[in-house]
């Protein structure tokens, strides 16, 4: 479904992602683990080119290697991205936010007219799948954190995606809500046969939901196996600080450090 070869990202002098080869299959739920600053976000964002990789290739079944603007557009249209902070337009209703997921496959002139009945019906269907049909006309800013993340997932679903990338989708939610959101993502992954890649910092959640765990450390893949092979010694190896764990991107919350400490204590 999705193959990367030698994918690399270098910021100025700092290498966030060393040349990496990975293949992701349809219907599979892969979890990216790793301490803050390991390069999880960088990898996910390079996959749909929100961050332009410094080197390497991203190849999609049916599109080929992403080397032109039109292929990048095709890739983004079929890839739903779910963000940690949901990244909704708070002034718009939940429904309008979900409909924004249709923009990629809608020509500019058409997107200036009101959405078609079919698009609205489809979007309502997406909201129903995430259990928010009754909140369709509520402003996104009025919803709770968990509900906002559901709208974020519905927006991804509105793209009718074949790939879903989720960057710490539960990092700002409480444990119960986190499980609900991951259950939802897993259900969608199975029902629609979507190739799903989710980054997490809770090891227990990775164990519970993942088909495959990929651990990153200082920009390198250090573990890639089914979750039952995630032994204590493997965890120790992943989470003992090797280099620049302290240099974290701005938006990381304190929860990440907590997870690191928990993992170390375990």
């Amino acid at each position: 479904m999705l193959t990367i070869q030698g994918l690399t990202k270098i910021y100025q002098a700092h290498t966030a992602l060393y040349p990496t080869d990975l293949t992701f299959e349809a219907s599979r739920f892969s979890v990216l683990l790793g301490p803050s600053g390991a390069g999880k976000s960088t990898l996910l964002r390079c996959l749909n080119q929100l961050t332009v990789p410094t080197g390497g290739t991203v190849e999609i079944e049916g599109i080929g290697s992403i080397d032109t603007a039109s292929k990048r557009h095709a890739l983004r249209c079929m890839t739903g991205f779910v963000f940690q902070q949901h990244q909704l337009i708070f002034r718009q209703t939940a429904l309008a936010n979900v409909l924004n997921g249709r923009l990629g496959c809608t020509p500019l002139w058409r997107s200036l007219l009101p959405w078609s009945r079919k698009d609205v019906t489809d979007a309502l269907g997406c909201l129903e799948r995430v259990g928010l049909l009754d909140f369709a006309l509520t402003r996104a800013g009025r919803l709770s954190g968990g509900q906002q993340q559901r709208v974020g997932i519905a927006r991804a679903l509105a793209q009718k995606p074949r790939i879903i990338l989720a960057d710490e989708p539960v990092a700002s939610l409480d444990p119960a809500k986190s499980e609900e959101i991951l259950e939802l993502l897993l259900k969608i992954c199975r029902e629609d046969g979507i190739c799903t890649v989710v980054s997490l910092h809770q090891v227990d959640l990775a164990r519970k939901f993942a088909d495959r765990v990929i651990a990153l450390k200082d920009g390198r893949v250090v573990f890639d196996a089914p979750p039952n092979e995630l032994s204590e010694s493997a965890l120790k190896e992943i989470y003992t600080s090797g280099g620049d764990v302290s240099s974290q991107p701005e938006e990381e919350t304190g929860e990440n450090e907590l997870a690191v400490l928990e993992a170390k204590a375990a």
Partner: protein
Amino acid sequence: MSKTYEFTIGELRREYLASLAKAGLGMLAVGACLAHSGLFDAQRLMEAGPALADLLGEMMPPDFSNWANWGMPLLDTLAMSVAGTFLAVCLSIPLGFLAAANASPHPVVHRLARGVLNFLRSVPELIMGIVFVAAVGFGALPGVLALGLHSVGMVGKFFAESVEHCDKRAVEAIRATGATPMQVMLHGMLPQVLPQMADIAVYRWEYNFRASTVMGMVGAGGIGFQLMGSLRLMQYQEVAALLLVMLVMVTLVDALGSWLRGKFA
């Protein structure tokens, strides 16, 4: 120990003296400006009192006898302010996006758009009015063009600033869905800044109504044109009446404007 005390107290004193000196320098500068512009010329100021009293006397009582002829010019002024603001908004939306660092297609375009906005802001609307009266003749049209173009300078700048302050994470999410750069602007940024844009536009309309009363003085129609006529004929009682009418209109427009802006919050 006591050495630290002494040092801190000395520091405090020095800081106090320094701020006194700064305040003194400021006062001196302001005083120089007052003197330069003749505000200390007691003799002239004394003479101004009686002259003003004379003028005010001649204005009393205000003469409204000509009121039937003011309806049309007032309507002209109102229409001029609305049309000028509309023109300004139409030009400001594209220019505002081009002048916003996060929406501009290229840094050079961004700089260029900022330059255009600065230029439009720095040419006074009265000068633009004179230019457009020369170009298209007397009437409301030159007023509309002058108000519209001059307003773009401020409205476009404020639009650009609100675009720059919109939530960039929501914008990124729109980009992630495969939206084109134009769609990112129209569906990711515009919905976020629409209330601010409406607020700025209405605020500018209030300003433009006041400005359009003056536009008449350079021949661009409206109530200001009437005012200029009465002034030329030294009919000060009518001038007083016109000023009162304008005061009422400005108050009404400001009230309507702030009511409208309250709706956008």
